[in-house]
């Protein structure tokens, strides 16, 4: 099931909210678990069983670690088991492709690993309530595409949730923003990119290739951040607060800055559970470089089983090492504008590597990007640019914190009736137009569904 679908918005969500809030607090987690499994099982009935088994394994391992610790042992074997089990499953489905990839596996295995490691490190107690633990893993807002929430960040909310109209309202607002990002910007930008991605190299020109790539840059950002917003909004509606996943990444002034703003929960996870255990930057320059490269290649390969993803990770690894050791110092001496240009150019090229599997003629596309197929606009390029003006303008506006600043300025104003009306109107309009697009299209897949 997809959030940006009529089924979710007008059948699942209404039913889920009623069921959830009409259950007394004591049983709410149990009911939530049921709702989570319905959500997950709707698209993949056969994967539910595997997921429950997988959850039970880590639940048991968590408890075993606690038992071991009570006996004065470290419990390290359990962590190793968990890693073998979780990463093994991931390798089996994702990298060896031996069976159909269960949706969300890349996200929930990382969440389970974080639990086991957190318990081992004694950063929290094991969760002895199976239902509560299962709710943590299967929470439908973030089950399929994140954000990746580390166990220690959510455990309080598993049993101590507070509910308020304010949270509901915030959740609605954030959810609507996410829905609009996905349906109105990402899907449309994706249409434009598909036009260019389908062409063979000889039909591409430099301006055209860049226009297409720009469209993809917007598509992937709004698809992913839109989804994260919808997840955060839904979580909020249920009384959960998730960490922020995106922070205006395209306003970055360097690649280091970019990765502090893009998919923060993933880079946070890798820092916490891979970079730091490897020694981080505390074991000398050589080891730091090695650690960075390992982490970034892992990040790359997490996104997909393909050489291009590995290359994408390595690309960032190398550039981030360069920035860390000398590039950033030089960059900071440039005027802000050029720092942005530097960052955006390299980010865009990174995305071109990332999206190679979707290109009909990747070699030709890259050749066009660097001027090898001609530098002039074609008729078709101008047509597409004109057609997607609205989408691009919205995308650029939404990539900048302008909207947020305006919103907060408004909420301080004294004329509250106008403010209320405006916000209500915007939310209704956003919902309405998104629904219009959803009805009009019959096909609305997510980019990240290979996870």
């Amino acid at each position: 099931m997809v959030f940006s679908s009529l089924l979710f918005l007008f059948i699942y969500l209404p039913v889920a909210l009623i069921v959830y809030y009409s259950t007394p607090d004591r049983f709410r987690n149990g009911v939530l678990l049921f709702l989570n499994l319905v959500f997950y099982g709707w698209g993949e009935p056969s994967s539910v069983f595997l997921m429950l088994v997988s959850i039970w394994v880590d639940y048991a391992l968590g408890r075993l670690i606690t038992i071991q610790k009570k006996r004065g042992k470290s419990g390290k074997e359990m962590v190793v088991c968990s890693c073998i089990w979780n990463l093994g499953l991931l390798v089996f489905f994702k990298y060896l492709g031996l069976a159909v990839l269960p949706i969300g596996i890349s996200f929930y295995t990382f969440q389970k690993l974080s639990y086991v490691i957190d318990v081992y490190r004694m950063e929290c107690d094991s969760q002895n309530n199976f239902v509560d633990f299962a709710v943590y893993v299967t929470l439908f807002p973030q089950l399929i595409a994140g954000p990746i929430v580390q166990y220690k960040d959510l455990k309080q909310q598993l049993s101590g949730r507070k509910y308020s109209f304010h949270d509901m309202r915030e959740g609605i607002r954030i959810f609507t923003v996410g829905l609009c990002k996905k349906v109105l910007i990402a899907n449309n930008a994706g249409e434009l990119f598909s036009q260019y991605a389908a062409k063979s190299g000889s039909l591409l020109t430099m301006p055209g290739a860049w226009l297409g790539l720009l469209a993809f840059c917007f598509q992937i950002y709004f698809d992913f951040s839109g989804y994260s917003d919808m997840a955060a909004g839904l979580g909020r509606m249920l009384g959960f607060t998730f960490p922020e996943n995106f922070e205006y990444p395209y306003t970055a002034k360097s690649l280091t800055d970019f990765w502090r703003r893009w998919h923060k929960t993933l880079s946070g996870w890798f820092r916490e559970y891979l970079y730091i255990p490897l020694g981080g930057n505390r074991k000398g320059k050589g080891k730091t470089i090695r650690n960075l490269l390992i982490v970034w290649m892992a990040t790359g390969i997490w996104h997909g089983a393909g050489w291009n993803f590995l290359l994408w990770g390595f690309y960032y690894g190398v550039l981030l090492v360069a920035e860390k050791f000398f590039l950033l110092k030089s960059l900071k001496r440039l005027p802000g504008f050029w720092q942005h240009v530097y960052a955006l150019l390299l980010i865009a090229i990174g995305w071109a590597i990332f999206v190679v599997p979707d290109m009909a003629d990747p070699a030709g596309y890259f050749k066009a990007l660097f001027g090898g197929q001609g530098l002039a606009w074609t008729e078709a390029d101008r047509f597409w640019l004109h057609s997607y003006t609205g989408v691009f303008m919205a995308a650029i506006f939404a990539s900048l914190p302008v909207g947020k600043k305006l919103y907060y300025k408004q909420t301080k104003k004294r004329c509250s009736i106008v403010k209320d009306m405006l916000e209500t109107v915007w939310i209704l309009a956003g919902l309405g137009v998104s629904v219009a697009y959803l009805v009009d299209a019959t096909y609305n897949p997510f980019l990240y569904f290979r996870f």
Partner: protein
Amino acid sequence: MSESKKTTKTDVIITVTFLSFIYGIFIMQLCKPDQFFSDTERRILEQRPELSWKRILQGTYQTDYEAYLTDQFAFRDFWVRTKGLTEYLSGKQENHGIYYGKEGYLMEALTEIDMGKLKKNVDAILSFQQNLQSPQEKLDLSDTGIPVKLCVGLIPGSATINRDKLPEDLPEVDQQKQIQKIYQQLSKQGITCIPVSEKLLQHKEEALFYRTDHHWTSLGAYYGYEAWAETAQERAESGQTWAGKPESSSFYGTLYDRAGTFWIRPDHILSYVPEVGIKVERLESRGWEQGKLYDREKLQGRDQYAMFLGGNGPLVHISSDKGEGKLLVIRDSYMDSLAPYLTADYGEIYLMDPRYYRGRAWDFIRENRITQVWICYSFKNFTDDTNLPYVLRTVSP
């Protein structure tokens, strides 16, 4: 972490608004009766899927249910139109394969041609002609002693003729050029090719195509007829003039619905040829039934263009007391606007639609002693159609 803030008025208003929206539609969806056929989409809508444990475990029930929900969604047409308007306002120049043109014109886009299908159709015509010319077949066909003459007419779309009403930069196929290339191949085999594009372009300032429909107007069809008269009959002009009779001023065509452009004004339909002395028969599943040249009952329905000869069907037979001789036209729906003019030239006109006619044109020609055959298609349909070769098949000698 969220601090439990005091509930403000805004919190309540927004929550209530959102919940009303989703619950409102939720309830409406449950109470709304299922629709079987959509007028605007001109297709049967998905119906409630069969519920069974097996289908749930396989996931087929879920996919079917989602398709059912989308098809039966409340106010579907309203949502589609909202999207059409939003597209237009955001600078899009095309929606669902239809261009937004100037002066309230909608036009079908043709950006890619399936060259494989096109070649199959052209080859089918060529081999049909070869068989018509071969001595063995001539003997077979001509009790009349007159060789069967083949003409081909390909009609360009509105986007080609009304090019100036579209943005300059368009990834649109040059239909005129493509038609000329095909004509070159065909005329080598002695097929008479009708220069429809050139004739229409000469009159492009006039209303040759409907604004809301992909068909040509009766006026456009008249010029198509003129092009045929000049080329096939080798006479300067038909000589007849008719006054246009208004049949409808509320014609919302196929493009209007598909593009969701509810703000565009409707078209007028005119007829030119009077019905006097013309009889029409249509072949239906029950056999031949009486039809009309202008079936005005169709003006009450969704597809007003079907007024011309009653719309789609395998075979239509027109008898006219003003003309002489027999003509077979293998065609698509564009011909319906043109056929009335041919009643001045032929006594018996047969219109055959390969989408529905299951027999062979060959047999038909022989049984009815036809001496003139015309293959007439809109170019877009010609590049798309897979039924024409089937109807044109002949037994090779």
